C-alpha cells in the first residue's frame, strides 16, 4: 500500500506515454514480425503462417540483394566521408577563432532543412544532361576547364551512383558530426591542456596526446549515429531518383514492394531485417550510454 501511494501518481503520469510506446513501437514491431511470417499479399490482410519463406525468398531476390549491396557501399562512403569532413570542420573551428559562431552556423544549417529539399537541390546540381542541356556541377566543371570531372553522378554505373548520393547526404550531415566532435573537444578541460603547454608540449602534441584519446567515445557515438541514419536512408533517394535501381536501398524497396505492389509479407520481412540491422548497432549503444550515466 505504501509503495502504491509512493509510486502510484508517478506511474499514472507516465502511463499514457508508456501505453502509446508499448503499442506503437513494441506492439507494432511484433505485428510486423507476424506479417513477415505470413502470406499477406494484396490489399486484404491475411495471416496464414508460412514460416521463414519470405526471408528465404529475399535471399534469391535480385532486387533485394542489389539494394543491400547499395546500402553497404553507401554506408562505407557516407560514414567515412562525414566523419572525415566533420572532424576537419571541428578541428578548424575549435581553436577559439574569430567568427566561430558564423562558421558553425554555416556548416550546420543543412540539418535544419528537409532531406526532400536537399535531394531536389542536389538532383539538379548532379544532373548528367549533356550538350545544350548540360547544367549543374557538370556545366560548372566544363566552363572552368575541369572537363575530366564531368560525370554521370547518381546515374553512373554501380557502385559509383550511390557515392553521389553520399555527397548530398554528407553535405546535409557533416555539420552534425562537427558539432559532436566540437562538444567532445570542448569537454577536455582547459586546465589539462594548459598543464601540458606549461610542460612544453606543442599544440599538435597537446591535441595528439590529450584531446585525441578523449575523443574516442565521441567517435563511437558519431559512427553509431551515422550508420543507423545510413541504414534508414529514404527521403533523399525517394526525391532524387525513386525508381532507380542504381541507388535503391532496402528502406526504399520496402516501401515500393509494400505500398506500391502490395506484397505486405515481403515488405514486412525487409522491414524486420532493417530493424535487426539497426538494433545491432543501437542496442549496445543505448546499453553503454546508460552504464556510463550510472557511473557518473
Amino acid at each position, binding site marked *: 500500500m505504501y509503495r502504491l501511494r509512493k*509510486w502510484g*501518481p*508517478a506511474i499514472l*503520469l*507516465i502511463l499514457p506515454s508508456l501505453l502509446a*510506446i508499448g503499442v*506503437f*513501437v513494441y506492439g*507494432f514491431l511484433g*505485428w510486423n514480425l507476424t*506479417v513477415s511470417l505470413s502470406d499477406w499479399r494484396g490489399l486484404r490482410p491475411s495471416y496464414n503462417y508460412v514460416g521463414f519463406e519470405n526471408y528465404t525468398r529475399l535471399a534469391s531476390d535480385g532486387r533485394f540483394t542489389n539494394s543491400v549491396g547499395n546500402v553497404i557501399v553507401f554506408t562505407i562512403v557516407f560514414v567515412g566521408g562525414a566523419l572525415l569532413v566533420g572532424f576537419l*570542420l571541428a578541428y*578548424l573551428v575549435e581553436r577559439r*577563432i574569430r567568427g566561430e559562431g558564423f562558421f558553425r552556423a*554555416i*556548416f550546420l544549417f543543412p540539418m*535544419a532543412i*528537409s*532531406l*526532400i*529539399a*536537399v535531394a*531536389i537541390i542536389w538532383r*539538379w546540381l548532379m544532373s548528367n*544532361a549533356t550538350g545544350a542541356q*548540360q*547544367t*549543374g556541377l557538370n*556545366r*560548372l566543371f566544363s566552363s572552368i576547364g575541369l572537363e575530366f570531372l564531368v560525370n554521370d553522378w547518381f546515374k553512373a554505373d554501380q557502385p559509383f551512383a550511390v557515392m553521389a548520393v553520399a555527397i548530398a547526404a554528407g*553535405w546535409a550531415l557533416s555539420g552534425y558530426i562537427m*558539432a*559532436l566532435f566540437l*562538444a567532445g573537444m570542448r569537454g577536455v578541460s582547459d*586546465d589539462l591542456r*594548459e*598543464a601540458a603547454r606549461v610542460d*612544453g608540449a606543442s*599544440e599538435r602534441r597537446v591535441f595528439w596526446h590529450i584531446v585525441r584519446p578523449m575523443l574516442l567515445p565521441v567517435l563511437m*557515438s558519431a559512427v553509431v*549515429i551515422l550508420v543507423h541514419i545510413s541504414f*534508414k536512408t*529514404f*527521403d533523399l533517394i*525517394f*526525391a532524387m531518383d525513386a525508381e532507380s535501381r542504381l541507388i535503391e536501398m532496402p*528502406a526504399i524497396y*520496402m*516501401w515500393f514492394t*509494400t505500398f506500391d505492389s502490395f506484397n505486405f509479407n515481403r*515488405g514486412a520481412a525487409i*522491414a524486420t531485417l*532493417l*530493424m535487426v540491422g*539497426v538494433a545491432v548497432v*543501437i542496442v549496445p549503444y*543505448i*546499453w553503454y*550510454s*546508460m552504464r556510463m550515466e550510472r557511473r557518473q
Partner: protein
Amino acid sequence: MSARVDVPRDLRIRSRWAPHVTTLRYLALFALVCLFLIPVYVLVVTALKDPSQVSPRQMWNLPDVLSLDTFRTVWPKLETGFRNSLVMAVPASIISSVLGAANGFVLSKWRFPGADIVFALILFGMFIPYQSILIPLRQVLSDAGLTNLTGLALVHIIYGLPITTLIFRSYFASISDELIDASQVDGAGMLRTFAYVAVPIALPAFAVSIIWQFTQAWNDFLFGIVVVTRATHWPVTVALNNTAGSQVVPYHEAMAAAALASIPTLLVYVLMGRFFMRGLMAGALKG
C-alpha cells in the same frame, strides 16, 4: 596533476609558424564555407531569376534582374501543404513536449524501481527504422479513420516521445533535488510538484523540445506519404516532392519550391539556433 602555474602569454613556447598556421586555418575555413554554400548559391540565384533568363546554360549566372515570378508560380502548389504542416506540426510538437516533460520528470526525479529500464525501452523507439512499424501503423490508422492530418499529428506525438522524454530527463537531472524536496516538505504531492515547480523551471527544455519536434515534424516525409491518403491533407514535404520531384518540372521552379518549403525551419534555426543545437546534441545521447 601538477599545480597550476599561470604563464604569461609571451613566455609560452610557440612555434614561429604559428601566425601562418592561423592564416591557413582561416583560408581552409573560407574554402569550406564556399563549398558548403554552393547549393545555396544555386538555389538563390535560380529562384530569383526572371523565368525568361532561366536555362541549363545559365544556372551559375547571377540574375540580370531580380524577380519573384518563380515564387509566384510555385506558391499555389505548396500553399495547402504549407498550411497543413503548420496546423499539424505546432500542436504535435507542443503535446509531445508536455508528455515528454512528464516522463522526463518522473524518470529523473521520481525514479520508481526499474525506471532506468523503462527509460531505455522508451529511448529505443527513437532509433527504430520506421519501415518496421509502417504496415501495422497504416492498418490501425485506416481502421480508425485517421488517415488525415489528425492521424499524422498523433504519429508525430507518439514517435516524438522518446526524444522529448530524453531532453526533459537530462534537463531535470541537471537540476538539484533540493528544489523538488522542498516542495515535498511543503506537503505538495507529485503531480502538484510537477505542475507548479518542475514545469516553470523547465522552460528552456520546452524551447529545445518544441523547436526540435517542430523541425522534425515539418521535415518528415515518410509518415506523410504513408499515413495521409488524401491530397488535401498532404504535408509540405509531400507537396514539395510532388511539385518538384520530377525531371519534367523546370529546375527554377523546383529550386523555388525547395526554398519556400524550407523557410519555416530555417527561420527557427536562425532565430533560435542555440535551442536547435541542444536538441541535436540530445539526440546523440551522451558522447
